[in-house]
């Protein structure tokens, strides 16, 4: 087999060469490039020579620390309180700016804090924006993957019926997939618009004017949710089609056998449909996860990572850093981290969904 592939297949290889060449040129080579660059201090345009810096870029991205803040006390050991009764705490920057006792925390900034008793714990990060991007990306994936997969399955089940005109629905559901994500994002910017957006108008009509208009993309608490909703809607048709192809591999006689036994719709789904969709489910889960981790265009078009970094994501950060700030090595480090995350999640998913026997 292998020998035949390599020996007597010169024409085949010749035909494959352009494809291979392009994949190598634009995917494999850049990947190794990124990996190499992430270990240097290379900038996009810089007069200085490039130097090898080891894992410094990764340390700058991933550096984390926890500071325990004790309330300020007076000479007698009494907690000093402000006018509203809350204790006073030392400032974080005392720890992170030139503090010889905490060299590791140098240059870090506060990410978030929480109270435990009278003391406060502050998590500081070397790169708070990256941390927010990391959390946002995971949030995005964790919400989008199950919802999109579930919704797509539901649509596929509805559409996998022999009804007149069902193709119209198939087309409608698939349409957003065909339209460029940039165009879709632009349209949804109008839908989400704060002053006269379609969504606000609809909600206001439905609630008889009770609903107060929200600037969906301008509000840090709704911006990420808005992008999530729109992203689910946009790609659900694509995954619906994959589910549909899985559904059509299930033999109709299995359904007839179940029908003769008097199986209810739910029992049929549980005993016939779902087991038959196993491999499709694995595929869809992995594809959605990978796509979701790569979220970029929506953020770039709709919010630019704002408001207040509420919609920062890893790819957006990588691009912004590499090209916006010309910090190619930092951007490369982010993409390598993303690659490792996606790789390990895919491996875990494959392991969890492996054929048990």
């Amino acid at each position, binding site marked *: 087999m292998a020998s035949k592939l390599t020996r007597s297949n010169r024409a085949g290889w010749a035909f494959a060469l352009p494809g291979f060449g392009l994949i190598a040129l634009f995917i494999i080579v850049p990947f190794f490039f990124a990996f190499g660059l992430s270990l240097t201090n290379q900038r996009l345009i810089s007069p200085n020579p490039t130097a090898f810096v080891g894992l410094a870029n990764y340390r700058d991205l991933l550096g984390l620390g926890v500071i325990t803040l004790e309330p300020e006390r007076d000479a007698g050991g009494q907690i000093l309180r402000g006018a509203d009764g809350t204790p006073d705490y030392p400032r974080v920057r005392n720890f992170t700016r030139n503090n010889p006792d905490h060299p590791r925390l140098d240059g870090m900034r506060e990410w978030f804090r929480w109270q435990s008793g009278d003391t406060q714990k502050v998590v500081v990060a070397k790169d708070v924006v990256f941390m927010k991007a990391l959390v946002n990306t995971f949030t995005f994936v964790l919400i989008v993957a199950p919802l999109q997969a579930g919704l797509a399955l539901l649509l596929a089940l509805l559409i996998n019926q022999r009804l007149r005109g069902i193709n119209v629905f198939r087309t409608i559901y698939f349409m957003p997939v065909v339209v460029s994500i940039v165009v879709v994002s632009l349209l949804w910017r109008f839908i989400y618009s704060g002053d006269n957006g379609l969504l606000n108008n609809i909600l206001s009509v439905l609630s008889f004017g009770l609903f107060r208009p929200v600037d969906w993309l301008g509000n840090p608490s709704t911006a990420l949710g808005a992008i999530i909703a729109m992203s689910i809607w946009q790609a659900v048709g694509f995954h619906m089609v994959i589910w549909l192809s899985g559904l059509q591999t299930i*033999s109709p*006689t*299995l359904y*007839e*056998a*179940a*029908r*003769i*036994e*008097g*199986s*209810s719709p739910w*029992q049929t789904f549980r*005993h*016939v449909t779902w*087991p*038959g969709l*196993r491999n499709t489910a694995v595929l869809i889960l992995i594809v959605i996860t990978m796509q979701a981790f790569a979220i970029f265009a929506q953020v770039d078009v709709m919010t630019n990572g704002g408001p207040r970094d509420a919609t920062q994501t890893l790819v957006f950060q990588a691009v912004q850093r590499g090209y916006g700030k010309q910090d190619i090595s930092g951007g490369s480090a982010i993409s390598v981290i993303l690659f490792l995350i996606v790789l390990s999640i895919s491996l875990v998913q494959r392991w969890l969904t492996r054929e048990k026997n």
Partner: protein
Amino acid sequence: MATLSLKNLKKSYGEAHVIKGVDIEVEDGEFVVFVGPSGCGKSTLLRMIAGLEDISGGDLEIGGRRVNDVAPKERGIAMVFQSYAIFPHMTVRENIGFGLTIARVKKDEWNERVNEAARILQMEHLLDRRPSQLSGGQRQRVAIGRAIVRKPQVFLFDEPLSNLDAALRMDMRMEIGKLHKQLDATMIYVTHDQVEAMTLADKIVVLKDGKVMQIGAPMDLYHEPANLFVARFIGSPAMNLIDVTVRETTARGHVVEAASLDPVEIPTATPGRAGDRLVLGIRPQYLTPSHDAATGKLHGKVAFTERLGTETILDIARADGSKLVAALPEDALFSTDDEISLTFDPARARLFLPEAG
């Protein structure tokens, strides 16, 4: 166990009339075989009984109750499909118990009934395997197991053996016959193999183009085919059919003749007058060849001989080029190109009206 009665049953797909008014009565505990060429509507008829196809006209009664609009589960039937239709992700045990699972039968009873079905089919040692680890015959047995576990009133089989090889088919045929005796259940069995029909059936229904050609016990169909179609279809090798002309009509039947057939009186009830064209049918088993041209009334030349061991098949060419087949009980001494005459008992010959068109 139940009687079954089909009264003027009809099925159309739009303008296509597939079942054109079928009347069949099935006794309690009877083994009925529907037989006919491909596309004659056997499966459709069976699926109408099962409730998988709705009925366009007429009445279907099971156990005296009209069930035209009753759900498959409520009809008290179980069906075995040609493609087995067993669930690939379930073990043999789960497959057999599927109907009980759907009916939410308690665990104890579930186990008991599945084990009993497995015992009847002698497949207790296979219970924990998956379908992919079974042979074709074993898979079909699982499908039969799923049918018997529910103790249905009527068993429906749609060409259950046609995916098996010849030897296995014979084994399974005998097993199904045995099962019928053991369960004493009403069974309806669809096949296009007349040997299966002859060996299994208490009653055979010959179908053609959605109409019943003849209903009767196997040997009745063999000896008294009602028309040319049944004559051709039942029996192997097929009945010899000779176009003859009526020379004169007698009290018992007609005297007929043909190019290589001396005038002979055939007792029959088939109507006809002198000069009418009829078709004479003689089973190959009832032809006795002889080298003496004066012995028999039918004349021809041996085209070739086939020795099957138990019998010898003689292919004989008549003067007008048409072919005759004689089946001899033992190895007979006839060689190619021998001129022979054939004797037959006129009482065992049949006269048919020619088919229209």
